[in-house]
Structures are given as C-alpha cells and as structure tokens.
C-alpha cells in the first residue's frame, strides 16, 4: 500500500507540553493523592497538606488564561489534566471541578475585566475557592425555573432564596450565584449571574448533605436572606445570567467527561491486573472468555469516550460551537464510567465489594456522574434540540 500517498489531515498526537503535563500529573496522582485516598474516604476530608500540594502544582488555575495566573493550557490541556486527575479519588476532581470547571469558570467566561482582575489571581493560585450555585430545591433539571431573587437596592442587589446541593459550598470563599432579576422575563432576560462573597452578611451555609459517595467532597445549601451584593459584582450583563450558566456548563461537561475517561481507564488497569493474578479453576481468570469479553468492552468504551472528549476539546479550542458535542461527551462518558466500574466490580468479585480494593468506592462515586452538571436526560434534550433545529 502506498501509505505515503495518504494526505495527513488529522493528528492525534498530543503536543510535547501536554505529554509532559500528562506524565507529571500521573506521577503527582500516584505519589501524592493515591496514598491518602482511603484516609479521605474514612475522614470525609481532604487533608490540608494535600490541598497545599495541589495548589503548588497550579491545579486551581488549570483552565484559566495566563494573564490571570492560570496555566493557559486551553480546553484540551484541561481535559488531559482532568483525565489524569480522574485516576485519583473523586473527592479531588470534585473540589477542582466545582472551582475550575464551573465556579470560577462562569466569571472567567463572562465577567468584566475589572471583576477578573480583582478575583481571578487568587482563584488561580488556589488561595480562594469558588463554587457554582444554580440548583434549587424546586429547580434542578428545570434550571430556568429558579426562584432565588435579586432586587435592586441602591448600588447593590439584595439576594433572597435557597440554593442546594452546592459542591464545596461549605468551604468556598465565593460563588457564582444565579438569581431572578425580572420574574416576568424568566430565563430569557430575567436571570442574572452574581459573583458573591460567601462571607457577606445574610449568607448562611447549611449543614453538610449526607451522600451515597464522593466522601471528602461536600455539598450543602447556601441560604440568602437579604444578602447585599454590589452591582459591580454582576457577571456579564443583567438578564444574561442563564446564558452564562449554560456556557459554563458546556465547558464543565467536556472536562467532566475527561474525568470519567481517566477513572474508567484506571478501573480497566486494575481489572486487567486482577484478572491476570486471580486464579480460579486452576488458571488466572484472565484466561476465561467471559472475563476477556468484559475487558474488551471496557477498553472499547474507554477508547470511544476518550476520542469524544479530545474532539470536543479540540472544537472548543478552535473557537467553534460545541454545545452538542459537550452534551454527547457528558452523556456518553458518564454512562461509560458507570458501566466500566460495574464491570470492574464484577471481575473483582467479592473482593471488589470489600472496601480494601477501592472498587466499591469508585462504584458509589460513579453514580452521580449521570446526574450532576445536567442529568443525562437533559443532555439528550440538548442533543435532540440541536439535531432538530
């Protein structure tokens, strides 16, 4: 075959700096995060020292531009990083995801230069933490139906309402809060995004929610009672908040998919190692076709997911619209990660059900992936809407 005749229009090779980023993060995860995974699970806390190390590494500024102290690695770089971090326990990716992917991202996308100059450097350095407050008890998937209100009061806005299931709500210094400025207009012009200092009088943090998994990462309610937010803290323009929320979530969905790919790849590696070592009926179980097929399916699904993530990220970095791809990535990769960890548990058998292997933790941690940052049903609606418009 005349291979040289084939025009080369696609290049799947990561750039040298992204390769280095990938290997450095792999080493960081193995040396710094793996050893404390069980401790994080048992104590439901990430030790301060680990957060400091993540900060030194520059992880809190991962997706942000260099002018504000971020790493300036673009969406592809961010996805490559999240893929590696996905190999660590979900507590770490959730802390970073709430901060980078959505919390501070909303401001990074639509905030004014003044707002970014004021807040981004400390956020990129990890000296301050951000969270994202959109969901309410009465508005989950139906995010346009939020009822938290923001009433103009001189140079400020007065916020009232309750946000719930807010990841890192207990520890964050700031939140991107979405509130109704004009109830008549609803999502089309009636919702505004605010950058809120969570130590403002009138802001209360609820108790930690009791969850199925994701120990070490906390969610809670944020309660606003006449909390005054200066008008200059509006992210973007009055009435454009819902759009800001949607754009932010588009970005978050790609990196969430990347985390799914990383965690699934790690589960596959563990399953391969276990299948080679576990002897039943006089042979390693890897010799059984039943196990081989499970491994083959896992690998195939991971391959599909990874390529979707990279392609979506490439689109984002090229400045093209990628809403549909982001929704596809979120939908597919989360379902894939849940399926892969289920198969990993099956291969590990009884051992997988025990705490020691870390598989049962991954199994519990995976389930949320199909729910948060837009349920997979909402993702399907987004995809269908794009297809039919």
């Amino acid at each position, binding site marked *: 075959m005349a291979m040289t005749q084939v025009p080369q229009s696609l290049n799947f090779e990561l750039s*040298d700096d992204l*390769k280095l980023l990938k290997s450095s993060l792999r080493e960081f995860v193995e040396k710094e995060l793996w050893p404390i995974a069980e401790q994080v699970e048992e104590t439901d806390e990430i030790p301060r020292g680990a957060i400091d190390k993540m900060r030194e590494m*520059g992880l809190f500024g991962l997706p942000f531009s260099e002018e504000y102290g971020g790493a300036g690695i673009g969406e592809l770089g961010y996805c490559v990083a999240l893929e590696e971090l996905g190999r660590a326990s979900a507590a770490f990716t959730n802390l970073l995801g709430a901060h980078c992917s959505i919390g501070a991202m909303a401001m990074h996308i639509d905030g004014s230069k003044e707002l970014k100059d004021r807040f981004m450097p400390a956020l990129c350095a990890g000296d301050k933490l951000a969270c994202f407050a959109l969901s309410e008890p009465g508005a989950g998937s139906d995010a346009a139906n939020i009822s938290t209100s923001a009433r103009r009061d001189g140079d400020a806005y007065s916020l009232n309402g309750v946000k719930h299931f807010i990841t890192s709500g207990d520890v964050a210094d700031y939140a991107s809060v979405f509130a109704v400025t004009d109830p008549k207009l609803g999502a089309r012009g009636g919702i505004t995004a605010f950058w809120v200092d969570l130590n403002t009088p009138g802001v209360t943090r609820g108790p930690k929610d009791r969850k199925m998994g994701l120990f070490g990462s906390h969610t809670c309610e944020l309660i606003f009672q006449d909390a005054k937010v200066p008008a200059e803290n509006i992210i973007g323009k009055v009435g454009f908040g819902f759009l800001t929320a949607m754009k932010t979530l588009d970005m978050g969905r790609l990196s969430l998919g990347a985390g799914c790919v990383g965690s699934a790849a790690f589960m596959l590696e563990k399953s391969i190692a276990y299948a080679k070592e576990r002897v039943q009926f006089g042979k390693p179980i890897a010799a059984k076709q039943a196990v081989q097929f499970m491994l083959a399916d896992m690998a195939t699904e991971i391959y599909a997911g990874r390529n979707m993530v990279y392609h979506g990220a490439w689109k984002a970095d090229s400045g093209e619209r990628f809403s549909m791809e982001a929704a596809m990535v979120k939908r597919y990769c989360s379902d894939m990660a849940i399926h892969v960890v289920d198969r990993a548990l099956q291969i590990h058998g009884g051992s997988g059900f025990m705490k020691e292997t870390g598989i049962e933790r991954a199994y519990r941690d995976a389930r949320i992936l199909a729910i948060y940052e837009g349920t997979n049903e909402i993702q399907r609606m987004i995809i269908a809407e794009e297809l039919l418009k």
Partner: protein
Amino acid sequence: MKIVVAVKQVPDTNAEKTFDPQTKRLNRSAIENVLNPFDEYAIEEALRCKETLGGDTTVTILTMAPQRGVDVVRKALGMGADNAAMISDDAIGGSDTMATAYLLALALKHIGFDLVLCGTQSTDATNGIVPAAIAEHLRVPALTYAKKLEIKASAVEIQREVETGYARVGSQLPAVVSVTKGINEPRYPTLKGIMGAKKKEITMLTLADIGADLARIGEAGAKTQVESFTPVGARARGEVFVASDPKEGARKILDFLIAKKAI
C-alpha cells in the same frame, strides 16, 4: 553564578528491559524513557541554590541523548531550570562511561559553568563514575555524595555521605558536585512551569561544536566492552520452616541465620 546540571534519560525503572543480541546494547527505543531519578535531586538542589543566591544565578540543563531525549530536558525546564544544552549525534552511540564524561566535559567547557551538579549515578548503568570523571577532564575538584550543599561566596561546602556519618568537604568554585538521594525532595514540574518550558531555549550542540575527537567516542573509543549478557534467573524459592510452637520456630530461624553467618 552559572549552575549546570548534567542529566541523563534512562529507561523507565519499572519497564521490562531487553538487549539487542548483535550490538549487546539495551533496546532503548522500545521502552519509555524517563529523567534519571537520581538527577531530579541535582536539579532540585540547583533550583534551591538559585533561590537562595538570587541575583543573576542561572540553572542550565546539560544532556547527551538522541533527539527524543529532549523530553527529559523539558521536564527539567518545567521544574524551573532556565535553559538547556543538548549534545545529540549518531556518532555518540556505543560510547561508554569514560567517553560520556569526556563529551560532557567538552560541552561544559563550551557553555561555561561555575558549579556542575550531578546525581550520584544513573539507574540504568549504575556506574557512578561520570561526576568524578567530568571533574578530572575539567581539572576541577570533584565533591561527591553530597547530602547537604552550601555555597559560600566563591566556594562550595558539602556534607559528604560516608558509611559512619558524614565528612565536611569544601573547595573553591568551579567544581563538580554529585548529590545523593537524601539531599532534598524534588519538586514536580508545575503546570505553569510546563507551559513556560516551551519558551525556554534548548541549544543543540554537535560534536564539531564542542570539538570532540571522534577516536575517543562511540564504540571505537570505548575503553570497556560488553562481552556477553545473561538474564537474571528467577529467584529460587525461599526455605520455609514449619514449627509447631514459637520457640521451636525461633530456634530453626536462629540456626539458619547462624549457618548463613548472618549473625
């Protein structure tokens, strides 16, 4: 002050290694190469010296490797080194330890230095000769196995690790110092460091640039020769003692250790 750190790319310590039966050389292309773990301590120490000394102190990475060795250079630059120089030439293949030291010394003369830092050894060949051999070629003092290093004006003082403790050794600069594993905790390349690394200069040096005598390098110039190689056999199964009570068991182990002259 100009600090130069000599580093090497080595096959990943965890990788399975094979040898080419014809050339009797390690199949390097088949395995992932990494920055020699011992060299990370030298880089870290150089960066710490720079942080302490401040001013116009620079850290240069020097390596001799095929083109793809640039990966380890990038890692070192990502950790914070200022720039790098790399000697790369097909004629270098087959060079032994002495030729390596000769070439590194020539390159050092070419780029200039006040202090050269090295790891104690590489994880692949484990000879541990290069640091002292470089110093010999350069006619400067070699201070080896430093577990602590301090620069005072134009002199360097180290705590040299010895079996019973440490010896304090010092010399004027320029000098070559090899540092041990315990000297520090190497940093990771930070994300900003990695992204910044691509803007840093990597100077490519040819054998002509540094004025190398071709007769002294490669297979022809090698003073040592690999005659043959044998894979390490699987370790024999250990002896198992079965005892009904702890006393009897202890006795058996004791007898075994005495027989082996271990105690």
